[in-house]
């Protein structure tokens, strides 16, 4: 997993609320057995018509957002299916950060496994960043994970909350499984105790 430290980039505005993971990556693209290559199908049914032509009005099809690295989105982003293909598709497109007032639980966790930073901010701050996003490359947003801040194009800085363990893993690009396997002895001993207490499991 790539580290996440700081990012200054173009943000794409997606003010729609309840953007679900079916929208982010429709089911027909879940048949892959790989993690890569999904960026071209990110938001597929909003982005292309039935014949596969780009829909010019869709934000990521507009010239100024083709290089977007940040999404500023409406409430409850990533709800629905647990498919990790959603963060895989975002990452493959080039999105490293999503900013919203709230995220669905599983999607939120999945982001951290893939070097994507989901940032939760209050509505009024998201509104300011949304208006920056509407200006495309003329209003770049800066995210600093170490200091846990987002800086709008006019220099206003907003602090965001983040779990310390998730932050540590993201800053250092750490592999969770490797970290957990360092606690193998604790797992062994839990299994011995559990086997005595609940042998039917």
């Amino acid at each position, binding site marked *: 997993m790539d580290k996440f430290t700081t990012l200054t980039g173009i943000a794409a505005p997606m003010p729609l609320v309840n953007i679900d993971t079916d929208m982010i990556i429709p089911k027909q693209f879940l048949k892959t057995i790989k993690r890569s290559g999904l960026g071209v199908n990110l938001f597929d049914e909003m982005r292309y018509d039935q014949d596969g032509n780009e829909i010019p009005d869709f934000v990521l099809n507009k010239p100024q957002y083709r290089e977007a690295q940040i999404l500023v989105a409406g409430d409850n982003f990533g709800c629905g299916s*647990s498919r*990790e293909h959603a963060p895989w598709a975002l990452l493959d497109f080039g999105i490293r950060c999503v900013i919203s007032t709230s995220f*669905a*639980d599983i999607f939120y966790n999945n982001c951290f496994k893939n070097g994507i930073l989901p940032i939760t901010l209050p509505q009024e701050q998201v509104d300011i960043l949304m208006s920056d996003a509407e200006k495309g490359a003329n209003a770049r947003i800066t995210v600093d994970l170490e200091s846990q801040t987002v800086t709008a194009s006019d220099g206003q800085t907003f602090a965001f909350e983040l*779990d310390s363990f998730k932050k540590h893993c993201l800053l250092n690009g750490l592999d969770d*499984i490797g970290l957990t396997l360092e606690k193998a002895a604790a797992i062994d001993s839990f299994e011995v105790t*559990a086997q005595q207490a609940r042998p039917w499991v």
Partner: protein
Amino acid sequence: MSGKTLYDKIFDAHVVHEAEDGTCLLYIDRHLVHEVTSPQAFEGLRMTGRTVRAPDKTIAVPDHNVPTTEGRENPENMTEDSRIQVAALDQNARDFGIHYYPVSDVRQGIVHIVGPEQGWTLPGMTVVCGDSHTATHGAFGALAHGIGTSEVEHVLATQTLIQKKSKNMKVEITGKLAPGVTAKDITLSVIGATGTAGGTGYVIEYCGEAIRDLSMEGRMTVCNMAIEGGARAGLIAPDEKTFAYVQGRPHAPKGAQWEAALAWWKTLFSDDDAHWDKVVTIRGEDIAPVVTWGTSPEDVLPITATVPAPDSFKGGKVGAAQRSLDYMGLEPGQKLTDIAIDTVFIGSCTNGRIEDLRAAAAIVKGKKVAVKRAMVVPGSGLVRAQAEEEGLADIFRDAGFEWRLAGCSMCLAMNPDQLQPGERCAATSNRNFEGRQGRGGRTHLMSPAMAAAAALTGHLTDVRDLM
């Protein structure tokens, strides 16, 4: 110090390690696996030379991609990408020595129906699966939730999950349900009241007389959609109904172990003085048969209502409601019962169990469908066999329903069972998202009885008018 909730008790019993910041390593008792969200996880194990730590606690079944038509054991009857995914699961199950129910096995079905049916799911367990509807298993008083593929790999390799404790939310459904009102109406009504993000950060425990009165099948329907309300998991405290359902199942404990298990299971309830971070109470008598009108599971209304106007909402929901109405092809003020239906889908992990088929068959019996296509997809091969034995299959076939083999089918349309653009479906599944059942397809969620009623009349219908 206050008492513990059921969630607290199960969580605490599974903590392997707790860091100073509260990050826990939680032991996982059952890991369910299907073909769509697992290939990259197994590939990860191979690339790092890791193995499955507890193959005996890992159960795999293909369900999302599999065709539900006859002859599906022949791989040539699957599209190439589906075939590759199912073949990968076959191979991974063999290579890593995990329990497996292939397509040819009568016990195959939707993973969340197979788990309880085979007795893999037991009270007090931690259960995970790379599938958001893992919440279903909470009906047994098991802490069960969906995970992403990276977490699937983590559980395969370590049999644990890195977790922070969620908050506790109590959803109490008091009193009795009126005739024609079912578990599906409860769970949809709760989401309608709390919204799709209302449960975010919480584990919900459903309780109250109306919940206790539900069968295990009904409780599974309620917990199944906890995720649609944003919750990490849904739970119902185990009771005599739970124990009766579990006893005698192939992987349930037996003899002295059964007695020991039962003694522990009977301690699994929320203490009277437990702390709740949020409480929602709904009167059972106030719940009507409901349907969804929009493209979010929170877009719920009684069948007697009319399509709402977007400006009756607030904030970002105004635009979302307008987008929903445009997508759904509906006008504000239209009576819900005037909405014509093309297709009826009865099945899914929400409503593909025997009780669901009985409820639908009771409405359908002796009548004919009035829609273009109506299908019943049992949740497992065993549900299908039982329904045939009980004569339900004949009732459906005689009425003009297609009687299919088990799988996820048109709930998410990864197999050939899909809606065409603009086609409108009365569905017993769990999501009405744009494109969920096929690009441009329009989904109305409801109970099996309500879907059966719509099949007979050709439009959304108040099932109470047919009872």
